[in-house]
């Protein structure tokens, strides 16, 4: 049984066509897969078939501990988006990016491949001015039409700055974590566990929060 029907498959193929360089998707799962781990594995297997510029590497969260540590993966299922040189830019998806979230997934794949909208100079300057380690967690649900914008903003910042890491966290997959941060509306963005906001914000406003950390 496949996750994508023919229509979705075609749409995804079309969406991935403009990819410039290769992108490697690293999945962390385990031998006896949890339900979402299995679905995420299936999802990545199918999507990586849709472009010859996409590759998939599967790691075992329990036995490949050094890899998990290297990428800072602390729960599964986790997808780490790596560039053509297999370099890590701190961009992760915890949980399956299905529903509306497929859009942030495709977007970061394209951006990681080199196809990205240029950011205004003043924003780039502010991003380069960030010298502290920043960890952004964006809590989402798959039925939320504007959550992908919040995830894409966080991922883009991570892509542009070596000091910023950004995770998508699917709230129903990681319930205790969502409870820990009192997530009851999505998208909810939490920065270093201290700054937080609900809703979508453009990069400039997300930077306002980061600069307060």
């Amino acid at each position, binding site marked *: 049984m496949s*996750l*994508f029907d023919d229509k*979705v498959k075609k*749409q*995804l193929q*079309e*969406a991935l066509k*403009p990819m410039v360089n290769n992108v490697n998707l690293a999945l962390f799962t385990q031998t006896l897969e949890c339900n979402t781990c299995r*679905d995420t594995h299936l999802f990545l297997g199918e999507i990586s078939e849709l472009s010859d510029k996409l590759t998939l590497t599967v790691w075992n969260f329990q036995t490949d501990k050094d890899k998990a540590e290297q990428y800072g993966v602390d729960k599964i299922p986790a997808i780490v988006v790596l560039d053509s040189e297999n370099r890590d830019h701190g961009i992760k998806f915890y949980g*399956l990016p*299905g*529903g*509306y979230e*497929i*859009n942030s997934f*495709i*977007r970061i794949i*394209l*951006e990681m491949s080199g*196809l*990205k*909208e240029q950011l*205004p100079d*003043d924003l780039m300057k502010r991003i380069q001015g960030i010298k502290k380690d920043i960890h952004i967690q964006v809590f989402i*649900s*798959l*039925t*939320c*039409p*504007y*959550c*992908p914008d919040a995830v894409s903003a966080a991922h883009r910042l991570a892509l542009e700055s070596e000091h910023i890491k950004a995770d998508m966290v699917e*709230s*129903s997959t990681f319930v205790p974590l*969502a409870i820990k941060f*009192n*997530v*009851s*509306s*999505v998208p*909810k963005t939490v920065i270093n566990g201290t700054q937080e906001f*609900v809703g*979508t*914000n*453009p990069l*400039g*406003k997300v930077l306002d929060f980061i600069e307060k950390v």
Partner: protein
Amino acid sequence: MEFNLSLSAVATDHRAVPMDKNKVYDVIIAGGGPAAMTAAVYCMRKGVAAGFVTVDIGGQVGETSGIENYLGFNYIEGSQLVEKFAGQMKQFEIGLSEGYAVTEIKDGREKEVVLENGDRYRAKSIILATGNRWRKLNVPGETELTGRGVAYCAICDAPLFAGKKVAVVGGGNTGIESAIDLAKIAEKVTVIQILDRLTADKVLIDAMQQFNNMEVLLLHEVKEIQGDKTVHAVVVKDTVSGGEKSLDVQGIFISIGLMPNTDMVKGVVELNGFGEIVVDCSCKTSAPGIFAAGDVTSVPYKQIIIAAGEGAKAALSACDYILKE
């Protein structure tokens, strides 16, 4: 599993530029929904210098799941339609400021738009297309607990209330749609309606009947939302007996309609009893050189296609005004 893909995930041919504080624009468009974006495209095609200031691109359309009455599309997701609108607008070198709301409009021969972060931009004319926002209850606890159990978007947040008890305020179409979405997943849903009946369409009220975890409190109003880190309870008052009681809930969805975003133009242009900007049939407000379009205006029927059409009209009126000035 569903995948709601929007095709144009990344557009690289965007030519929009940051807003310029030293420039006097021909027209500044405030707002980011279909009226504002249509106005922007019309202004840029007319060749006038236009600026676009908005909190977000898409407005209410971005929060809409399926749209089946925007001609040309039998069915389109709200987010997809927004991308199409935004893509078409950004192919022009339009001035763009995103993320900060307009807090003040200063009228005069040269007009000024003030944003919440203090930025000020000048223009010969202004198009107000700032739309509507969710109407708030204005009860204690609502603001403090927003995002902590107080919610406004049921399709977004319903999954977070699986197995929990929730309240929905409002017995109109949005309220009952929210209640149905929540009843599928929550332990119990209590609908609180201030009137003596539900005002939602019959199809929705019929659809409610299949759930046995739903309760309707007619002639009740919310007095207070209680909680610390998250919502714990809602205090409701029986409007007939005057008696109050506390409902043990972890979430409250507020669906009591919309209100126009016109705080920034109070005293500048004429508003009607609903707080909407009064416009004539060419989108002129009571202040020369200030135009308005879309849901924020007195034009009846809040529809995407109407807002878009009004946006076009406001742009043409503004261009006409600039030419004559």
